[in-house]
């Protein structure tokens, strides 16, 4: 599983940086590197681009995994250089952006250079598909391990709509119909009768509709005072 990102249009980034002269750049060595959106080469590319447009890049780094605890220490190490910058441009996923913002000693603007798209499953090398909505109430046990909430364009829970044609979704010929996939897999297992059961109405309160979700687990490396 990887967090899939894409770079924002340069115009949007430029707009963010309008009032900033000095910029500190941060990339991420994990998902964003894999997506070619925030690895070392992309960071250097953006650095050159900003400098060509009159900005001063006071420093940069690629944090190994921007969403984890070590980000805090990376920021501490670079604190002096970061202090000289008017803002940070984070070439990380949205979790990285927030992690950086959370751990800065002095409050400073952190702008996202990327759009965070989805949590992707690598179906084949380099090809990522969105397969989980993180709805908080998994239905995969009743849908042959294919999630219709995110793979069906209408999140239908009771079979394909009238727009399913030749295995494709009506929204685009590039999107496989999730219910065709579910149907084929259940057919192969001789379990089509299960599709005649009516899936009950979903409880969205355990999803994002219920407000921000939190989870407390025993920390692997608790912060020692």
């Amino acid at each position, binding site marked *: 599983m990887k967090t899939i990102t894409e770079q924002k249009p340069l115009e949007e980034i430029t707009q963010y940086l309008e009032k900033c002269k000095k910029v500190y750049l941060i990339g991420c060595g994990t998902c964003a590197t894999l997506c070619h959106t925030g690895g070392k080469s992309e960071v250097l590319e953006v650095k050159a681009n900003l400098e060509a447009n009159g900005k001063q890049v006071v420093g940069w780094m690629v944090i190994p995994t921007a969403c984890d605890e070590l980000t805090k220490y990376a920021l501490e190490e670079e604190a002096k250089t970061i202090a000289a910058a008017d803002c940070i441009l984070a070439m990380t996923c949205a979790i990285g952006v927030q992690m950086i913002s959370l751990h800065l000693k002095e409050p400073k603007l952190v702008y996202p250079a990327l759009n965070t798209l989805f949590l992707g499953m690598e179906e084949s090398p380099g090809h990522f598909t969105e397969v989980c909505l993180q709805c908080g109430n998994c239905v995969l046990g009743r849908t042959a391990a294919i999630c219709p909430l995110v793979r069906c364009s209408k*999140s239908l829970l*009771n079979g*394909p*709509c*009238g*727009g*399913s*044609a030749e295995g494709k979704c009506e929204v685009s010929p590039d999107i496989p119909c999730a219910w065709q996939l579910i149907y084929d897999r259940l057919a192969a297992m001789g379990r089509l009768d299960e599709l*005649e059961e009516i899936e009950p109405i*979903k409880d969205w309160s355990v999803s994002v509709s219920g407000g921000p979700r939190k989870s407390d687990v025993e920390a692997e490396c608790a912060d020692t005072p």
Partner: protein
Amino acid sequence: MKAGTNLEKVLESGKFTVTAEAGPPKGTSVASVQKKGELLRHCCDAVNVTDNQTAIVRMSSLTGCLILKQQGIDPVMQMVVRDRNRLAIQSDLLGAVALGVGNVLCLSGDHQKFGNHPGAKGVFDIDSIQLIQTLKMMRDEKKFLSGEDINGEVPLFIGAAANPFADPSEFRVSRLAKKVKAGADFIQTQAVYDVDRFRQWTEAVVERDLDKQTHILAGVIPIKSAGMARYMRDSVPGVIIPDEIVTRMEQATEAKEEGVKIILEVIEQLKEIPGVHGIHIMAVSWEDIIPEVVRKAVLMPRPVL
């Protein structure tokens, strides 16, 4: 009787039923709805008012239904789950019933990508089959989805759609069975052009006795021009038009006449198919032709019950 609407009475009487679709305006004109109502009142048993069809914003279906109701026409309120969550669905239904709308057609709705607000958030809180269940629960148990009681009766005649031509084709009868199990009293199908393929579907439907548990109205769309035939063949999700029909339209000297001829041929065959209880005419921006089609199909006058 579940709702006692004209549509329910005609279907229950066993007479071959005729419904038609009227698209509300992209504006505020009451007169434009009334004009369609006047056109359709004598040739149909009920008139569907679409709900932001093809995801294009129009006057609300409920408003269109009320205007038709004032003209003495039995309206069918179409309701899609694309634009409303369960709260809005239930409150709109209470309002519709309060004002005398009894027929409701439960739909998923065309994806917002196809409409004029492609950046809209699709709601899809519940799906179309769960919408049918919701209506049935409100009517039969007089309860909201929350389990709380509804004050007053909720007489509804519940409709659903079916597309015999979509894939996976083997699942299409199962999907109908699910809708019937959920509580669909009547079904309006996607437009039929390939009658043989439609017949295969109805045979499987009859085999399972589904036609005895619900009323099936076969959809028909009169084709106005060769361009429209090509457009529907190539670009309208869920519609299948055989090339032969496109060719007929292309070669016709009088395209409109040919379109009427084709639709009459289809209707003649549909009348004879066991399990088909009527037709639903969706004359997209060609409503004027409906009276002629119904008359020439020898389906006039409509029963007064």
